[in-house]
């Protein structure tokens, strides 16, 4: 049974200036013990996807307007709020972007871990304390007993992030969503955290949705990858295949943007144009205004996901067998 299945997800938000639809027809799947990377530029809709999976959209003036989400075979759409509360933190956990601001400044960090634990598990305070220390130790937090009693502002960025991870893991979730977990950290700390993710998810058989704009991190630990652009998935599949042989023009351009040692001077490329604002998504294929390979039909028809090979999906008209007239 697939751990997480997302099918044709569309999301709608009410803003002051009207209704916007930041996500359209997003589909992917994650198995238990698998790490999937969700990559895209800022504004591509990655965080919104995470919020949708967590059922947090109503708190942000949003709602799912199309598609379905299945968690371990259970349909998550239209679940009542009290069911969601047993799922959040318990079956799905979210680790969010900035560890500096993810913790409540007035409570000790140990308390915040225990709080999450006792919310979902029927254990005593003493048992929760013991488990929390154990968890902290397994995340390689030095001197866990002392750190337990400290306040967030007394800890370094890397330590804080480990605490946030501990908070995420404390109630034995099946699925972990990490939203840009390394962006706010030093490079050396980044490497440690990333390795930690890989070890922990393997060890506990947890599925991990790793949201990031850092292609290097994806290459390091992800099994599969989904590339997002302007609220749609343009390419997804096994990470090695996608990175070695990107098919979607955007994926290719993205990978081409990363500077590599030994590159000839002057070869740094950028994708011309800007990421479209959520209110002014282009018609047809959302990438077509910036695409080098565009044809006329790209403006009219919205590409659907086409299966290439065994498990690569590409959302481009070029690969659509029904579009031979234009491609």
């Amino acid at each position: 049974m697939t751990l997480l299945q997302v099918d044709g997800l569309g999301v709608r938000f009410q803003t002051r200036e009207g209704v916007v639809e930041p996500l359209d027809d997003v589909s992917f799947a994650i198995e238990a013990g698998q790490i999937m990377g969700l990559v895209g530029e800022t504004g591509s809709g990655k965080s919104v996807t995470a919020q949708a999976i967590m059922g947090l959209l109503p708190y942000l003036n949003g709602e799912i307007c199309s598609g379905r989400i299945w968690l371990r075979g259970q349909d998550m759409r239209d679940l009542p709020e009290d069911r969601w509360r047993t799922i959040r933190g318990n079956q799905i956990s979210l680790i969010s972007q900035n560890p500096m601001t993810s913790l409540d400044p007035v409570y000790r960090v140990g308390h915040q871990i225990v709080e999450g634990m006792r919310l979902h598990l029927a254990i005593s305070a003493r048992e929760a304390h013991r488990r929390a220390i154990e968890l902290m130790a397994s995340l390689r937090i030095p001197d866990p007993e002392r750190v337990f009693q400290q306040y967030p502002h007394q800890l370094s960025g890397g330590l804080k992030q480990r605490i946030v991870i501990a908070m995420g893991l404390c109630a034995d979730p099946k699925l972990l969503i990490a939203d840009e977990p390394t962006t706010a950290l030093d490079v050396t700390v980044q490497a440690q955290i990333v390795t930690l993710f890989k070890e922990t998810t393997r060890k506990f058989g947890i599925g991990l949705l790793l949201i990031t704009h850092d292609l290097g991190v994806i290459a390091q630990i992800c099994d599969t990858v989904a590339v997002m652009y302007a609220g749609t998935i343009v390419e997804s599949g096994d990470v090695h295949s996608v990175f070695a042989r990107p098919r979607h023009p955007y994926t290719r351009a993205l990978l081409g943007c990363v500077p590599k040692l030994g590159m000839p001077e002057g070869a740094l490329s950028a994708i011309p144009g800007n990421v479209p604002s959520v209110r002014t998504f282009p018609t047809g294929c959302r990438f077509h205004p910036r695409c080098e390979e565009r044809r006329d039909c790209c403006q009219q028809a919205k590409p659907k996901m086409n299966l290439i090979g065994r498990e690569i999906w590409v959302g481009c008209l070029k690969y659509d067998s029904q579009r031979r007239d234009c491609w």
Partner: protein
Amino acid sequence: MWRFMVRRVLLLIPIFGVVSVIIFSLVHIVPGNPIDNLMGPGMTKAHEQQLIEKYHLDKPIPVQYLIWFKNMLHGDLGRSIVEKRPVSELLMHHLPYSLSLGLTAIAISFVLGVSMGIVSAANKNRLWDHSAMLVALFGVTIPSFWLGLILILIFAVWLGWFPVSGSGTLMSLVLPAVTVGLGGAGLVARVTRVSMLEVASKDFIVLLHAKGLGKTAILLRHILRNALIPVITILGLRIGWVLGGAVTVEIVFGRPGLGQMLITGLYRRDYPVVQGAMLLLAMGIMLGTFLADVLYAYADPRVRDQHD
């Protein structure tokens, strides 16, 4: 925490020094000769010499100040010209009335104000929010003496529930305490609302939802706990403020508090009394500020470490 408190106390000492200088100089700043100011009714030229000796008016001013200061430390604040009693005795008589009124009023301000603030923040921009904030606005802008008079009119004269004036009984405390309390409640409500909305938009709140915490638990255990930090400091300051700031309410309700003592002294040019009352009020305000700082450090762990 202790080091923080000790440092705060040490800082107060020079401030108290400056304040005492100002209070002392009052007698010399107000229009009129200090001797004339100290002369009570029915005194003659002969008394003048006595007064000069007694109050050391022939010595240079800094010396006068030091003598006055030394006496103050011994609890000798002079005698009231009009009442002919030691000022310290008068202070001890008036202080309890101010304290009882002040503390009750602050309790009312806190309970009412925080409740209104929570209701407002939870119903942002809807009816409850606008209504509560309108009431809070009135609380802040209504002159307290007018509010007191209106309350007397409604609750003492027309309804007869409470006595019109007087002191010493619980019933006579209600209307004055409500009058002072409503003013503070308005301020507390506005600050609570702003603070709660600010905390609610912080990143860690989303994560609390993600943990699976319910809305009420998040509101009370996390948002409120963070939001009350600035509110508590305001209450600490208010304690000092309310001792003297309630003077009009004391007059309207006929309560013999410190404010009333001060203004009566001013009317009658009874300057030792004025100085004594001002000294006690200044001490109260400094204590209030100190309390506010301590409470702030207690409530916000980040501040504690800053000062250690």
